């Protein structure tokens, strides 16, 4: 494949020592791509989906901001990028080009696309599944291309069933990546998170429509900086082993366990999405059959693969020892990321209990979340938590705030998976 795929490094951080009879191996796998985005130019495909439901005009500034944001994203398109702009209601319609195809970005096509967007008038409902289906019909099946979509909405997915949306999400997996943004506070974090997680993208709230343009431009810039369309994590494990989980743990927590595709030869493959010059951390936990004290076993072999090409590899070894001082140690990074995953879960469960009116559970979960966020130095989540709970500085106990701004709560929910990093052990 292209030269951009050189420079993938795979680092394994774990305590290889296990006590007699124990078989659980935890490891942090750090994958770093050192690629120059400009040196190789894979085919790029972009779709911008703008919510044109009637609610977008209440107030009208919201829709004006959405149009400006779409224009800002178009401006960031690298010339030659194939793109489409789609207007979403209870159905989806191509705004530019109108023939349900793709345009090639140039000064002229970008200007024409912006004119077409400017002429949009909001009118209709919301059925995001049909939007995904429409985009898939235009951009799908482009093997080897970097295919990315931005989806903007301001409301709930009202004009189709959750099953219909779920089915469309499933069909779109692997066809394109999708970053989702909710403007205002009338949309559902869980709904957009379901899309962004499955389509290996991000989710966030843009509470103030005035901030949309900068957010869209920045999302498109990040997308334009990607140069590797699809990386796959291939995990070999020995006979008799069970993969407990595979999670991305930085920059955000994303559970990939259920994304496993069996690849034969005791290997499973997990999609890692598109990559630019960046690094991400993964936590894998494998249960292996214990061996005798003194023996060594390979608990997992981690390969990073693009197409058929193995770009990087790391070995997770296990050594059984009678020395409990060795086996009792937990890798600092394994401990840290275990805490970060628990933090994301505590935030989501706490907010969900709060919505359901279960104050006791909500308080307990959010108190635990606050402790974990402070302990681990996750200042971003700690700050967002303070918008929802009050902390007694003396005792450290937590009380739910009576009046919580909806935007604060949604921001905490949407950003709950962002993790703090910890330095690699040397």
């Amino acid at each position, binding site marked *: 494949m292209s030269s951009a795929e050189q420079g993938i490094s795979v680092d394994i951080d774990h305590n290889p020592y296990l006590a007699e009879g124990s078989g659980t191996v935890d490891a942090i796998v750090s994958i770093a791509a050192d690629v120059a985005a400009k040196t190789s130019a894979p085919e790029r495909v972009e779709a911008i989906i703008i919510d044109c439901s009637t609610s977008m005009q209440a107030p009208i500034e919201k829709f004006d901001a959405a149009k400006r944001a779409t224009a800002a994203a178009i401006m960031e398109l690298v010339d030659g990028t194939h793109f489409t702009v789609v207007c979403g209601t209870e159905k989806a319609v191509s705004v530019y080009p109108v023939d349900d195809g793709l345009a090639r970005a140039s000064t002229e096509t970008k200007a024409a696309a912006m004119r077409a967007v400017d002429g949009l008038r909001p009118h209709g409902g919301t059925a995001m599944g049909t939007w995904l289906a429409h985009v898939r019909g235009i951009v799908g099946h482009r093997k080897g291309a970097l295919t990315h979509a931005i989806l903007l909405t301001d409301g709930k997915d009202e004009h189709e069933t959750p099953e219909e949306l779920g089915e469309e999400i499933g069909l779109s997996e692997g066809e394109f990546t999708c970053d989702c943004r909710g403007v205002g506070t009338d949309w559902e974090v869980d709904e957009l998170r379901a899309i962004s997680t499955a389509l290996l993208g991000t989710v966030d709230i843009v509470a103030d429509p005035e901030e949309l343009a900068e957010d869209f431009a920045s999302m498109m810039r990040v997308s334009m900086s990607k140069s590797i369309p699809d990386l796959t994590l291939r995990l070999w494990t*020995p*006979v008799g*082993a069970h993969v407990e989980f595979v999670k991305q743990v930085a920059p955000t927590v994303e559970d990939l366990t259920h994304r496993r595709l069996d690849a034969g030869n005791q290997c499973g493959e997990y999609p890692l999405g598109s990559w630019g010059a960046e690094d991400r951390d993964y936590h894998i936990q494998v249960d*292996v059959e214990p061996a005798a004290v003194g023996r060594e*076993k390979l608990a997992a072999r981690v390969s990073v693969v693009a197409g058929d090409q193995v770009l990087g590899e790391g*070995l997770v070894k296990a050594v059984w020892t009678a020395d409990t001082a060795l086996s009792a140690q937990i890798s600092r990074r394994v401990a840290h990321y275990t805490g970060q995953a628990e933090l994301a879960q505590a935030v989501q469960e706490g907010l969900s209990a709060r919505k359901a009116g279960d104050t006791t559970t909500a308080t307990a979960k959010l108190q635990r979340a606050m402790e974990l966020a402070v302990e681990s130095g996750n200042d971003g989540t700690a700050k967002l938590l303070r918008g929802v709970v009050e902390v007694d500085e003396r005792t450290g106990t937590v009380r739910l705030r009576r009046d919580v701004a909806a935007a604060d709560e949604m921001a905490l929910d949407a950003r709950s998976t962002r993790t703090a990093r910890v330095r690699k052990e040397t």
Partner: protein
Amino acid sequence: MTGQEATCSQCDAAVRRTDRFCESCGASLSEVRRITIPRPGQSAAGPCADCGNDADFDEYCTVCGHRRVEPDRDKADLGGIVLITDRGIEHARNEDAAAAGILVGSNSQRPDGIAVAVCDGVSSSDGAHMAAVAASTAGVDAMLAALVASRKAHAAVLAGLRAAANAAAAAATDPASAPSCTYTAAAVVPTPAGKTQITVGNVGDSRAYWLPEAPAAPQQLTVDDSLAQELITAGAAADSEAVQRGAHTLTRWLGADTETEPWSESSVQTITVVGLGSLVLCSDGLWNYLPDAADIARFCRGTDASAAARALTEYALDAGGQDNITVVVIPIGGTS
């Protein structure tokens, strides 16, 4: 057959069989052969001992993931010199190593020179087996190079000691750990008068024995660098408690954590022997059970080097195999 003429392997010029160097191009006319055991990569051969699968990546089985078990023993024969190194019973891995090299000149039955080294990795250091392999290999290489240049056994052993010390010190991959090992070497050269000159040198407690055919008396050629030996030298009885306790405490070794030349010139000793016999180099995994030269001689008389080396190793295993066992048997003065 005239038997008088041969050609240089480098330039094809005609040379006399008695020449050590080609008169035409200056190349050495001796063929150099060498070996070090245990040989790496032996574990990859054959099916996995745990699940029977044939394939592996790196050193791990592709099915069950077990690291391939190192073979317990490696045995080699280099022109009649027999080397055996065995893990023993008590130790999890073999940290001994042995190397040998020969210069084959005009008479393939009687090499122009022999260099042998035995190293015993010190278990209390990390990567001791790497130091042992590196030191024995470097020592033999340096001895061979010296013997090619001039047939002086004493100078060769000193050159070997220096090279082995450097190699052991360089074997440290982690600055926090200093792998270390013993080193016992012998250089053997025939003299024009039909005798054989044997020079030995050692750091640590691996030993060399000269075991001539009867009725000549067998003898230990090296003096251990151990606490026990220091006590005996100072007058303590060999079977006293203090000596027994200090038996394996080394006073000298090779490695990054020792002086640059941890040997005394007096440890390098030369004897000139007549007639047949066996030169034996071994680690303490053998001599623990057979400390006296006469004990070892019993295994070597009236048999070939291969049978002797195997019998000695088996004896140490039967006696408990508490340490790695390494034996090198060098037939002297015969036609092996």
